[in-house]
């Protein structure tokens, strides 16, 4: 009996969608957006700390985030939230044994919703 290969951890392989089915795309997307949102969560908490600094600090901060680079960043966060959230719904309900056979259709449907929502928010943000 040969030993199990204890390969060095190859992080890239997690995110390699070649030859993979839709489910893996969902898995990869979920991981990336999840990690991204976690990062954002803590940045966001730190930035909201400006509120404790009183009106000047906060309003100055809001003026800063009005610039297009921050807006684009914010859009990314919204996109990630929609993808992660809607995909989460899919995982949640299939995990309880509901619609397991329809997970692909579910994924396509929910991601369509996500894309529409993202476009809607993009237009809203950049036209205001």
């Amino acid at each position, binding site marked *: 009996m040969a030993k199990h290969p204890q390969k060095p951890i190859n992080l890239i392989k997690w995110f390699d969608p070649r030859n993979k089915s839709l489910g893996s795309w969902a898995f990869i997307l979920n991981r990336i957006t*999840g990690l991204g949102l976690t990062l954002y*969560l803590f940045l966001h*908490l730190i930035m909201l700390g400006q509120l404790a600094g009183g009106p000047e600090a906060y309003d100055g901060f809001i003026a800063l985030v009005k610039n297009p680079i921050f807006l684009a960043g914010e859009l990314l966060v919204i996109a990630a939230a929609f993808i992660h959230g809607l995909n989460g719904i899919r995982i949640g309900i299939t995990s309880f044994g509901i619609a397991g056979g329809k997970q692909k259709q579910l994924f396509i449907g929910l991601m369509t919703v996500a894309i529409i929502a993202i476009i809607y928010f993009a237009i809203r943000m950049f036209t205001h």
Partner: protein
Amino acid sequence: MRDGFDVTPRSGEGAGLWFLKILTGFLVIVVLIIHLIVNHLIVEGGLLTYADVVRYYQNSIIPIMEIAFLIFVVTHALMGLRSVLLDLHPSNKVLRLINYGLVVLGIGSIAYGIWLVLVIVGRG
């Protein structure tokens, strides 16, 4: 390894954690929807100034909702992070460190958030 199984007893993934992750994920979505409705439909013009934010927090429902939201999001995010870290197969020792780290980080950020909310409410 016993017959191909790694049976070192440690709380890696488990039913409780998994259930909690699904549950908090669901709650985040629910609260987020309420949050979006309140922010964009009920409050006119959004929360773009300090004064707006302080006024917004005068309604007693709001701070409770925001704190709940914070708890759900932080729990969900840190458990998700832990799942990702577990896939790097940490040793028992490293996993214990990760567990402590995440608990401290979680409690810390929730405490910080509550403090922040109370500060804002106090400014009203």
